């Protein structure tokens, strides 16, 4: 894990291949943060442990975290967007998403 050059220190890059950062602490909505020499406005508050796009990600493209695919984009994701259940899905099996509680 490391800070990335030109990137806000609250964003962690877990593996060099990753296309998402992880927030080490909360980043409030409306903040302007540096993402690898680009400036992006954070649309919604990103809590500790949540993901933020490192670069634009096209629908169907793999989300890479820990250097490994953790799912695919379901809609276009812009650099700096919150990456979560609203814009990515499991590539494994949806059956693990049903039957909660």
């Amino acid at each position: 894990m490391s800070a990335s050059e030109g990137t806000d220190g609250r964003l962690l890059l877990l593996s060099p291949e990753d296309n998402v950062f992880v927030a080490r602490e909360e980043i409030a909505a409306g903040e302007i943060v540096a993402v690898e020499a680009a400036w992006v406005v954070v649309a919604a508050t990103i809590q500790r442990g949540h993901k933020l796009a490192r670069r634009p990600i096209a629908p169907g493209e793999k989300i890479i975290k820990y250097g490994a695919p953790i799912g695919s984009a379901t809609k276009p994701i812009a650099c700096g967007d919150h990456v979560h259940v609203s814009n990515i899905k499991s590539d494994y099996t949806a059956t693990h998403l049903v039957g909660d509680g």
Partner: protein
Amino acid sequence: MVDGPAPMRGFPRADGRKGIRNIVVVAYLVECAHHVAREIVLSFRDRDVHLIGFPGCYPNPYAQRMMQRLCTHPNVGAVLLLSLGCESFNKSALSRVVAQSGRMVETLTIQTDGGTRRTIGAGCAWVAATLDALAAQETVPMGVDELIVGTICGGSDGTSGLTGNPAAGRAFDRLIAAGAACIFEETGELIGCEEIMASRAATPELGDELRAAVAKAARYYATLGYGSFAPGNADGGLSTIEEKSMGAYAKSGRSPIMGMIKPGDIPPRAGLYLMDVVPDGEVRFGFPNISDNAEIVELIASGCHAVLFVTGRGSVSGSAISPVIKICANPDTYRRMEDDMDIDAGRILEGLGTLDEVAGEIVALTRGLGAGMRTKSEEMGHQEFILTYKSFEPIGPACLPG
């Protein structure tokens, strides 16, 4: 003056392995003998006398094998077996295995040795004499290349996969580079990691075994109605089951996977091994591992001298037989429970340390356990132990290539 780390020393055993502890194990062979065994152990509170046992009255080959492995673990110097007398556990076979390993062993049978009070008295006398004998044993130099180290995570939260687990993974990489054997497990929490895990396998056939083990775990947990992705995971920032799994998988580091073992199988050489902890065959006996300590016991049965335990919410567990190094992934938890935590990995989130620094601390403490250091849970007397019913088929030939 620059001091290097203190050299590791170990207790040599007849099978060529070395222990970093020289413990007297008191083992009850059925729950009915538990109290007598515990009373004996309590008489030696601050000595290295640990309580283990199997509660079942009905025979189970897995439990028999686990007890044989645990009682001949390199950290164990001598064994006192506590039988009620009418249980079905094969105590003579266990006693024979321990004796053949060169260890002192005694069996007390409560029904024939005069009941509770007299058996406790006889047990305490044997342990006292045995501790004196063990104290006279000499240690010999020991290297990291003689260590087996396991890892688990428990009480996980959103920080576990960010700090503690990857730091443990880097520690594994360093230990393996120095010649140690390292074991990770929890196949039920590796769902979604099977392809990337298979790609790290030493041979394609081993890769197939790794995939099959995860598929077996998925089936087993589905039958139990367990293994879903909970809403709380999403609150913590996890979006998919494979993301959750990858957080746990990070404990394995980046070394090639040299083999797949089952509980009680001892890694034959250096390198990284996956332990398949999910029983074979139809689902019976309930949950595979009912709590973290069931997994820790299985790692120790496979020879682990020490176990790296990554926690976010804050487990306090230690273990009988082998030290447990607690790595706290969450900085808030660390502040609340510092007395229980050996390693503060959560500080990485606060920019106060790096994964490599924390990995270095984990490796240093792991080595240090062989040079007189003790873990927080050891200092506080934690000796958790649990062993329940399971059934396994032996591993296939593709599981240990080369």
